[in-house]
């Protein structure tokens, strides 16, 4: 018996006898119950409204399908909203509370990420690269070396935790997949830039690895996301925002601008995840503070990375001859902005660090009131 698509979509056929004569045994002798056709216990007849840009994840979050449970009962990969057998296997998930991974903006961010993907091959005007003064080319190559090194942590970290996330939090996992793709593209674009103009990959030293190791070894996902999204990616976002100021050509400008938009999505997820986690369970705040206490110290060590720091200063100054008169001063100004952004982001996330941070606010010339107004 063959059903038309229209019949399968519109007619459950439970009561009219239409499906009574279906075979009860498969050609291989297995018993068949046809439950999917005549009796699956799901919300049938949901018809989301298709929007002007197509059918989004927000559009299909209707009825029970839009309800994300705080504490899912299953531990399997069965799709949320399906009629799930009680004996589905336990996949070993350890992040089984919604507050472990969720953010109120995560569905929107997933759609945004999909809509705003770009290509490091096609969308950067590589053909506009011109020969640069040796110091500027070296500095750009050093910055790109360090960025290539640190970017993939934001892919490895979600990859480490995603298979531990309950599958009812599908949208959060989907968003993290986009983050992994974004970071692959960032590693790609910075590696390409280091190699594209006759330069190459330069110095890699221990300070960067210390920060990356702290992030990847975080004890919980929420600690990890505080270290990665709030602290690490927040700082990198500000470097990308600064990218326009250090770019010697339209190629680097475009590269930093495109990466900035991606990074901002990741930071937006992390900020709102922390906020959600703390709202749901205020005790989590201390766990996050402990991670950031350590993370800030390690980040400060990363910030003193002489290769990355001096390369940035040379680019900000416009060459080695201006590094002392202009570059270091501009860099200090940018660092103040980075720390201000970070502390303001913590406020937004509901984790006030103003009176706990180990960052030398006075030395940096930072006023907590300015941060609060940021």
């Amino acid at each position, binding site marked *: 018996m063959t059903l038309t698509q229209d019949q399968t979509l519109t007619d459950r056929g439970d009561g009219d006898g239409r499906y009574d004569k279906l075979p009860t045994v498969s050609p291989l002798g297995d018993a068949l119950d046809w439950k999917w056709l005549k009796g699956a216990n799901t919300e049938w007849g949901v018809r989301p409204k298709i929007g002007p840009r197509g059918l989004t994840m927000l559009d299909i979050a209707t009825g029970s399908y839009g309800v994300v449970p705080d504490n899912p009962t299953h531990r399997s990969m069965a799709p949320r909203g399906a009629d799930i057998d009680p004996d589905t296997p336990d996949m070993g998930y350890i992040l089984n509370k919604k507050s472990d991974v969720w953010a109120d903006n995560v569905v929107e961010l997933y759609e945004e990420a999909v809509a*705003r*993907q770009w290509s490091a091959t096609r969308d950067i005007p590589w053909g506009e690269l011109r020969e640069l003064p040796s110091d500027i080319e070296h500095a750009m190559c050093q910055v790109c070396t360090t960025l290539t090194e640190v970017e993939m942590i934001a892919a490895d970290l979600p990859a480490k935790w995603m298979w531990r996330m309950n599958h009812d939090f599908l949208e959060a996992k989907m968003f993290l997949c986009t983050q992994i793709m974004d970071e692959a593209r960032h590693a790609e674009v910075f590696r390409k830039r280091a190699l594209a103009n006759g330069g190459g990959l330069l110095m890699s030293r221990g300070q960067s690895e210390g920060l990356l190791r702290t992030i990847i070894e975080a004890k919980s996902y929420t600690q990890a996301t505080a270290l990665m999204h709030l602290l690490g990616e927040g700082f990198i976002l500000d470097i990308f925002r600064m990218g326009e100021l250090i770019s010697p050509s339209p190629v680097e400008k475009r590269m930093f601008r495109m990466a900035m938009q991606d*990074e901002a999505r990741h930071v937006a997820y992390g900020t*709102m995840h922390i906020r959600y986690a703390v709202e749901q369970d205020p005790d989590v705040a201390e766990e996050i503070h402990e991670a950031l206490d350590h993370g800030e110290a390690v980040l400060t060590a990363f910030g003193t990375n002489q290769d990355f720091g001096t390369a940035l200063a040379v680019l900000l100054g416009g060459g080695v001859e201006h590094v002392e008169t202009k570059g270091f001063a501009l860099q200090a100004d940018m660092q103040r902005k980075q720390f201000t952004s970070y502390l303001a982001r913590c406020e937004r996330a509901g984790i006030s660090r103003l009176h706990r941070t180990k960052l030398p606010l006075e030395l940096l010339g930072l006023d907590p009131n300015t941060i609060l107004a940021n």
Partner: protein
Amino acid sequence: MNIATKAFFVALANELNAHPEQFKVHGEADMVAALVMRKADGDFAVRVAFEGLRVEDIKETSVAEAAAADYYLDGPLAAWQAMFDDILANGSASGRLTINSLALLGTDIRLRGDDPMGVDKFSRFNQTLQEYLDGAARVAVAAG
């Protein structure tokens, strides 16, 4: 064209909506941005609503209402004029006169907003906003 007018921002929107190919590389954007221009004879504020690949609405508003947008960019008229003059001279914003650099430096034009999720949108959709503002080069040419 006087930049502190609704007509100017409507013209930018028409330019954007007529050339969606300029925006496709950036993808769709959903945000309401507001621009506030401080001037001696009374502040000017405008809300620009982006939806998908289009600007769907332009509304002249009060400074207080501007704060209800996802984010607002607040600066003296002279700073805004300098930004648009640069766009006109170069075809698009250059150097430290891109909207990102201006907001990052924060000396003339400041990024503000009450909702952190809204303020995030400035960075998330930054190049869409920049393309919209860069349309001033083509609008001014067309007007001339």
